[in-house]
């Protein structure tokens, strides 16, 4: 699971109001190369919750060099884009858990696949 995906995931248990962002408990992390596409990165930046991204990056150990806030110039700066690219698309959570901030419910991540299946009583 990449941080791009994590940024969009939320807890969908019935009645939960603050199910985003999910907290990450990382057990195994892997790095995989991805194609660098600045246009794609800028397009993704527009829809990313930056704060949630930073917290996720911290959990996966790739937050170094990422600023608290991003300016327009930085979006054109190759240096920033490379760091953003790496954290967003190349660092993968293989094993661990995603935890709902409201209920504490754990969604396991196995082989890089988050298990978001709900139990009968959560629907």
């Amino acid at each position, binding site marked *: *699971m*990449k941080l*791009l*995906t994590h940024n*969009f*995931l*939320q*807890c*969908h248990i019935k009645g939960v109001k603050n199910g*985003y962002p999910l907290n990450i408990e990382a057990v195994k992390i892997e790095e995989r190369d991805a194609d660098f*596409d600045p*246009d*794609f990165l800028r*397009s*993704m930046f527009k*829809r990313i919750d930056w704060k949630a991204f930073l917290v996720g990056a911290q959990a996966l150990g790739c937050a170094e060099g990422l600023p608290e806030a991003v300016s327009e110039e930085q979006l054109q700066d190759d240096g920033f884009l490379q760091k953003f690219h790496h954290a967003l698309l190349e660092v993968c959570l293989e094993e661990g858990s995603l935890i709902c901030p409201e209920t504490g419910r754990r969604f396991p991540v196995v*082989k*890089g*696949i*988050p*298990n*978001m*299946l*709900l139990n*009968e009583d959560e*629907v």
Partner: protein
Amino acid sequence: MGKSERPEHTAPPDIFYNEDEARKYTSNTRMIAIQEKLTQRALELLALPPDGTPRLLLDIGCGSGLSGEALTEAGHAWLGLDISEAMLDVAVEREVEGDVLLGDMGQGVPLRQGVFDGAISISAVQWLCNADRSSHEPRKRLKAFFESLYRCLARGARAVLQVYPENATQAEMMVAAAMKVGFSGGLVVDYPHSTRAKKFFLVLMVGPSSYAPQAKGLDGADEPMSEDEDVDMGEGGQVRNEGRQRKRHGKPKGSSKSGAQLKSKSWVLKKKAQMRGKGYTAIPVDTKYTARKRKKGF
């Protein structure tokens, strides 16, 4: 899969698509070709602006990633959702570009508001119409799915869901559920006159839209068949609500006759010689009149 057995009648999808089935499905060249074709058509109907910008798409019921790979080929990023662990394991094994989630679309897609540029689904959403478990209520599940899908799409985005409705009631059920949550759009039926090629696409727009996609094969033309598709074996089932069954078979393999040669003089002479060779005695003698062109209306 049996010839006329719908997978939905056999078992719930997470059980039907077990390791064996997942592997069979993914190594079946015919299945790959069909999925590829359907994904291309879905992308066509999605009508993303052709400006070369890679978009973020949701692939619902992504399975082993056959459709996802076509999305990657088209230059898009995607996130997949599927209920079968076995199918997703195959996707990961095949190193598909998109991340995949294990989840049940009938429980709602666990994604936040307005993040996707579009969504596709190939041969999956009709599973919602069946109560796979006693606690399932199809209408409730359809609602949960469409509501959450609507929410996670960006403004102006579209969803194209290729489905195999078992009958007209199911098709209506899916359309109604989608409209109820605010989608506009409807069902596009390609090749409506062909049993073999008929395909259903639920084309949905977030909010009102003037988008009016054109179905294929409305003039009665059949779909051009590719090598890998062979005779229709009812993949996932076709709508059986039809008057006359017109079976269309492709050219049988090994057939060397072209249409023009079929009843030509040389063919007739050859055939007669063949029959004599077999021992039939009553074959008329060949004369200058044999297989002569007759006047029209003979």
